[in-house]
């Protein structure tokens, strides 16, 4: 899966992006400032914790919320540019939205829900229904065309909502937490189907989610937002390998530290030093997986360069292993097998020695790489 994503994410995009925007929305104590560029056929995921401004960005794109500053250009047309007092209402934007809880019109059948958009585009009732039937067929819902939304299952309603948004043939498709309302079992199937439909969509697609799995599976490129700002962006492989914030590190399950590198030695805040496999000079991030941390009852001898005494903070189940939180001098998560845990008699408060091989750590410059010209415009 990851290999496939890497290939798709690495596909060079030529020409101007279909969506080119800098979304600035100011509210009382919150400011969103989000540069965003999405090419035709590209699926970008806006990933971030709750309250990061993802939904605000989506509403601004859809025209449900005016920009305070910046610009929003789609297919060469300015849809919102406060500097020039330009603003298009949502009904005049070539944008389709799949809302989090779908918002299928309860008084219309699935078919008429999907035909609603084409009808507004001026198609006659018959033609609109034919187009809608085609979309429902593509979603595998031909049998449910006459069902009202309340008679549809969660997965079916999600697909009707997707069909309704795609039936207007939008230049930009927006999806707000498209799988959040589904139970775990349905989510798996629906995610796979959604990936197929998004891949077939010729326009740009922007997906808003707080679920890293949705983002990794569905998107070509990830834009990670925290506190209204972009903290990292890139394809799944880069982001999972080189997280730049604690939030991202937690998402991808890595221990992450920031420090100052001199050759193979990285000095962290507080005077702690890590020896890394990569040599750098200047501010760097150091990342290593919890599985790279070995625990010993006594001071280990031999190869590991990074060894330090610490105490057990907490122990949790993590898959087949146990995840151990180590307290001080740096916070570290370590994965140990149940056998090793029994051998060490792990319990909170127990002193142990931690060891991390330098070759299992990765260090990379902390200064973000120069951004693409297209996103900075």
């Amino acid at each position, binding site marked *: 899966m990851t290999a496939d994503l890497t290939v798709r994410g690495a596909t060079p995009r030529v020409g101007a992006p279909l969506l080119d925007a800098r979304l600035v929305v100011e509210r009382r104590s919150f400011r969103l400032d989000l540069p965003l560029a999405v090419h035709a056929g590209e699926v970008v995921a806006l990933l971030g914790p709750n309250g990061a401004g993802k939904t605000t960005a989506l509403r601004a794109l*859809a*025209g*449900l919320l005016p920009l305070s500053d910046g610009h929003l250009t789609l297919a060469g047309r300015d849809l919102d540019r406060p500097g020039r007092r330009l603003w298009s*209402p*949502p*009904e*005049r*934007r070539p*944008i*389709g*939205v799949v*809302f989090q809880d779908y*918002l299928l*019109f*309860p*008084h219309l059948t699935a078919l008429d829900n999907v035909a*609603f*958009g084409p009808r*507004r*585009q001026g198609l006659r009732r018959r033609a609109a229904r034919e187009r809608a039937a085609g979309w429902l067929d593509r979603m595998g819902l031909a049998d449910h065309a006459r069902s009202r939304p309340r008679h549809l299952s969660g997965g079916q309603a999600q697909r009707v909502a997707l069909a*309704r*948004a795609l039936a*207007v043939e939008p230049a930009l498709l927006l999806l707000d937490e498209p799988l959040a309302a589904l139970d775990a079992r349905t989510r798996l199937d629906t995610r796979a189907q959604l990936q197929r439909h998004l891949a077939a969509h010729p326009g740009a697609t922007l997906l808003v989610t707080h679920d890293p799995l949705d983002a990794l599976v569905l998107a070509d490129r990830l834009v990670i937002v925290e506190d209204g700002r972009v903290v990292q962006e890139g394809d799944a492989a880069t982001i999972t390998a080189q997280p730049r914030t604690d939030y991202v590190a937690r998402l991808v399950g890595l221990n992450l530290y920031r420090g100052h590198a001199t050759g193979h030695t990285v000095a962290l805040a507080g005077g702690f030093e890590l020896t890394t496999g990569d040599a750098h000079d200047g501010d760097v991030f150091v990342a290593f997986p919890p599985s790279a941390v070995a625990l010993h009852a006594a001071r280990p001898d031999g190869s590991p360069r990074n060894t330090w005494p610490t105490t057990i903070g907490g122990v949790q189940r993590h898959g087949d292993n146990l995840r151990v939180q180590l307290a001080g001098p740096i916070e570290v998560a370590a994965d140990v097998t149940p056998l090793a845990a029994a051998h060490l008699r792990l319990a909170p408060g127990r002193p142990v020695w931690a060891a991390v091989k330098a070759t299992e750590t990765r260090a990379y410059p902390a200064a973000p790489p120069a951004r693409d010209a297209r996103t900075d415009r």
Partner: protein
Amino acid sequence: MTLLDDVASPAPAAPPRRPRRTGRVPVALLLPAALGLLFLVLPLAGLLVRAPWSTLPQRLTEPGVLTALRLSVVTATAATLLCLALGVPLAWLLARVDFPGRRVVRALVTVPLVLPPVVGGVALLLVFGRRGLLGGWLDSTFGVTLPFTTTGVVLAEAFVAMPFLVIAVEGALRGADGRYEEAAATLGASRWTTFTHVTLPLVAPGIAAGAVLCWARALGEFGATITFAGNFPGRTQTMPLAVYLALETDLQAAIVLSLVLLTVSVVILASLRDRWISGP
């Protein structure tokens, strides 16, 4: 909530049980409650007891009764249609558009609700009367006279009944999820199309309930009608006016007419039972 509470709380499968206080009801509450109920029900029972049941069929088919009944139904229906045409857009404006002075407008809309209907009738005369603010102009320009006509009855009833409709519809609009309208906008629907194709169907039950309430209020309208439209049999004499007039000459007829109005009220209440009088 502590951890212990969490552990002790029942499994989610257990049916939710509402705590109900048992024990004696205090007499100090029970007695006035019973008296209150009696006070509301007794007059209606009196109406049923004194009704001339044996001659009821003949009396009901008397031409005067039928004329008044027909006029009442026609004018109340016309007034309701007028209220729908003007009141639903007004309710939409109050519920969906944030304009300066909205609170004042909402207060103005509810004035006829608390205003004595007779005062409403006087006010209508001052505006639409032959020498009123608009009445004189309507008369000289279009030759239209409103007071003491059937149209005047409709106007008086609409004036008194419209607040019921506006309040009911505004409540329904506020209760409806506005995000459906946003969804419609993203699908290319203008505000008008959204209103007709999404908003109206969503709040249709609320509009129906408001219309029934409005119709019932119009049907029983007395004060504004008699002040603004007078009491001419066949033209402006609706059921409540007929009841009042009959009271002075023929008590039995007044009872029969009242019974008819009572029946209509009960039917309306029954049709609204889910919406207005069902408890939690």
